[in-house]
């Protein structure tokens, strides 16, 4: 009896589900930029991942709040017998879009593909020594040393069909840098909730619901068709939503949020992004080229850095420039990251007089002048933030010349060695949710693959050693203690001038309610249409 009721309920559930599914509902999705490629291992870039995630899936996935959960793998663990082996149990019954079943062979193949030199995702798997199939639904990932945090990286490695890749000669990950194109760049076949219908890069990509999706029943899957359109100009994008041509807009300009919120036909959701905006300055150089101080580098003096940090009125930036769509901070680490604490996050209070005094103590009673480089098309109101900060530094006597340009030029200045900027803005996201990612890129002495974004000239042997030690530390508590220790030093040194954690807003028709995804990769399979 019990079983029959349950069976009945199941049937009922399925039929209602099917009824829901049967209804054709198109969702027109717009954002500022297009995916660069459909090759799941071609480009490690936000918009690319956001689109590809609808076609391909990884072993694990994060929900919109950043919480790790199962996807193609149902469970995972470090083998108790061997701390260097991660075991993943695959979800049974998963089918690719072409109907073939997902097996451990596909996972092994995909990981090997992602680890190829041409892959843009190899960075996530540097600790991996080997991926082996145990049985059809079990995979072992063997690491070079113990890697307790490896599972965090598996969300980014999407799984392809080995047979499909072999058939279409796409077994090699696209070498994006080398202008290479393969079948998988414009074609895609995964296990995801949507299948590719057509794609015109930079114009339009159409996806159709995968009616054999394994998650059917556990996710709403109400959107039967996704029309993805990149619309670059802010005003046009907002206009498209206001005029009803698109249903869902990412990258909503902060100044338009109020207007959109006020529109009865629209809904706006907001939330923090896993990204922090800050300024960096060259404290390592003997003398700055762009300043008016001869023979010494004002940035080398910690008091100057402190003064500049105190001069920034973060609340004003949040209120006026960001219209509340940001969280002021005193650390360049988003709250999602392992190592974040409320104390670290605290910014010094704005104090112009104290700042002036510090400047005077440092020997610059009349301030100095310097050039600031700023991107104007990368972060939310990046240029306006720079302008505001320039005014605030002006108030303590530091005359800052602002040069704002496209990200394509801006990032070059920072990445060159030696860097071609002495004062710059950067925003940093942390896909691994761990402080080490920030340390190794932003704080470690510039050497080889380490510190490649550290254009400050900051170099601290002790800190460097601690950063390196994090990669092989298996004792989580000890590791976290090191992280806290390193952050304390770094914050005290005022290596960067943090501004805020960037917030995101999505705008959509009022019958939708898509929460902001912390990684800014919304998952439309979860979309539920309301009031119908």
């Amino acid at each position, binding site marked *: 009896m019990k079983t029959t009721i349950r069976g009945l309920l199941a049937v009922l559930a399925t039929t209602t589900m099917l009824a829901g599914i049967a209804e054709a509902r198109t969702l027109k999705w717009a954002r500022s930029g297009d995916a*660069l*490629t459909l090759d799941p291992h*071609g*480009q*490690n*870039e936000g918009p690319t991942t956001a689109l590809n995630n609808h076609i391909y899936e990884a072993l694990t996935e994060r929900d919109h709040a950043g919480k790790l959960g199962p996807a193609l793998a149902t469970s995972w663990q470090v083998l108790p017998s061997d701390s260097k082996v991660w075991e993943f149990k695959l979800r049974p019954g998963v089918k690719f879009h072409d109907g073939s079943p997902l097996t451990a062979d596909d996972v092994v193949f995909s990981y090997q593909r992602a680890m190829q030199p041409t892959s*843009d995702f190899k*960075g996530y798997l540097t600790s991996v020594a080997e991926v082996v199939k145990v049985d059809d639904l079990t995979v072992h990932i063997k690491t070079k040393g113990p890697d307790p945090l490896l599972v965090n990286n598996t969300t980014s490695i999407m799984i392809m069909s080995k047979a499909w890749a072999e058939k279409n000669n796409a077994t090699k990950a*696209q070498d*994006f*840098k*080398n*202008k*290479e*194109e393969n079948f998988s*760049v*414009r074609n895609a076949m995964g296990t995801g909730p949507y299948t590719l219908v057509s794609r*015109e*890069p*930079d*114009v*339009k990509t159409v996806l159709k619901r995968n009616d054999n999706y394994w998650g059917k029943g556990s996710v709403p899957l109400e959107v039967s068709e996704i029309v993805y*359109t990149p*619309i*670059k*100009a802010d*005003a*046009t*994008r907002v*206009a*498209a939503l*206001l*005029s*009803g*041509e698109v249903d869902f807009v990412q990258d909503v300009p902060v100044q338009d949020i109020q207007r959109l919120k006020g529109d009865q036909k629209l809904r706006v959701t907001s939330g923090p992004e896993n990204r922090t905006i800050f300024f960096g300055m060259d404290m390592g150089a003997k003398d700055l080229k762009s300043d008016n101080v001869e023979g010494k580098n004002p940035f080398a003096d910690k008091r100057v850095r402190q003064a500049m940090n105190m001069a920034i009125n973060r609340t004003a930036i949040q209120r006026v420039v960001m219209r509340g769509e940001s969280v002021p901070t005193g650390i360049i680490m988003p709250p999602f990251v392992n190592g974040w604490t409320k104390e670290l996050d605290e910014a010094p209070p704005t104090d112009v007089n104290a700042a002036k005094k510090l400047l005077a103590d440092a020997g610059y009673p009349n301030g100095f002048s310097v050039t600031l480089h700023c991107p104007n*098309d990368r972060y939310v109101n990046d240029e306006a933030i720079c302008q505001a900060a320039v005014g605030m530094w002006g108030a303590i006597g530091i005359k800052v010349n602002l040069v704002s340009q*496209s*990200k*394509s*030029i801006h*990032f*070059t200045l920072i*990445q060159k*060695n030696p860097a071609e900027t002495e004062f710059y803005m950067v925003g940093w996201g942390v896909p691994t949710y761990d402080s080490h990612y920030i340390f190794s*890129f932003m704080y470690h002495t510039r050497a*080889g*693959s380490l510190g*490649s*974004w550290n254009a400050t000239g900051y170099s601290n042997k002790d800190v460097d050693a601690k950063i390196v030690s994090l990669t092989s530390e298996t004792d989580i508590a000890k590791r976290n203690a090191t992280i806290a220790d390193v952050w304390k030093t770094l914050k005290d040194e005022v290596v960067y001038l943090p501004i805020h954690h960037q917030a995101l807003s999505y705008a959509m028709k009022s019958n939708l309610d898509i929460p902001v995804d912390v990684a800014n990769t919304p998952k439309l399979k979860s979309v539920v249409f309301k009031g119908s």
Partner: protein
Amino acid sequence: MFAYSIRSIAQGLLVLVAVAFIAFSMFRFVGDPVANMLGQEATLQDRQELSERLGLNDPWPVQFAQFIGNAATGEFGVSYRQARKVSDLIKERLPATVELAVLSALVATFFGVLLGVYVAINRTGFLSNAIMSISLIGVSLPTFLIGIGLIYIFAVELRWLPSFGRGETVKIGWWSTGLLTESGRKSLIMPVLTLAFFQLTLIMRLVRSEMLEVMRADFIRFARARGLGERVIELRHALRNTLVPVVTIAGLQLGSVIAFAIVTETVFQWPGLGALFVNAVQFADVPVMAAYLMFVAAVFVITNLIVDLLYFLLDPRLRTGGRTAKGH
């Protein structure tokens, strides 16, 4: 005429090479493709390796020679950003720009000539003055403001017309057209008007002044003295003579229409070459930028040739006497 055509073509080729050099040399120094193509985790070694592979370390004459050689075969390499062949990208985007530009040029020429003739004939009428004033406002309004204004009125407030894109397109071979669907046609209206407006005012004012100039010509007085009707004189004798310079300017303006499409396409998110170019500039996508510049140059050379041919059709003096025939 044959020799003349040969000379025109030779000159055109020279122009193309010159523009190719400009295209090549300027974009060699602008931006840094390497930084764009590598993600945020790139190491210095990655960067050097990539420069080497892209041939960015070769001496520039070698790069230029390669560039010319490839350009001659329509080959501009692979887009740094999209990792696709530029020739494919151009082919994909060309229909959108051509439909927009040609329609705009037609609208501008047709209404430009029509209004120009009207205001030239009715020099003092109220409507003429109104048209002339509006045309001046048109010249004084930047294209992007017109586009933004149209979007605001017709897409956002009235919701009559789509605010961006081409709508539904139909593929005919490799060509995609928006003319065969309703949404495609609706999508064309605002961009075409935006793009046409400036050219329209230009052509209108040109037609007006040329026409007034022609109306002062002796043969017009003589035509009057022969008792021909005023309309016949205006629409047959004067207009036909006006058309020669107008065709020249209008023809040469096609290049300008295509380049102004950069702004229009940006405002309306029109998936054409202009938008491709702006995107390319943003990412310092050298091959795409170079190809676009060459495309504009090619359009210039071709329209020049067509204009020359039209000359022969419109002005009989050139058919026999060559270009040096004594003009009026």
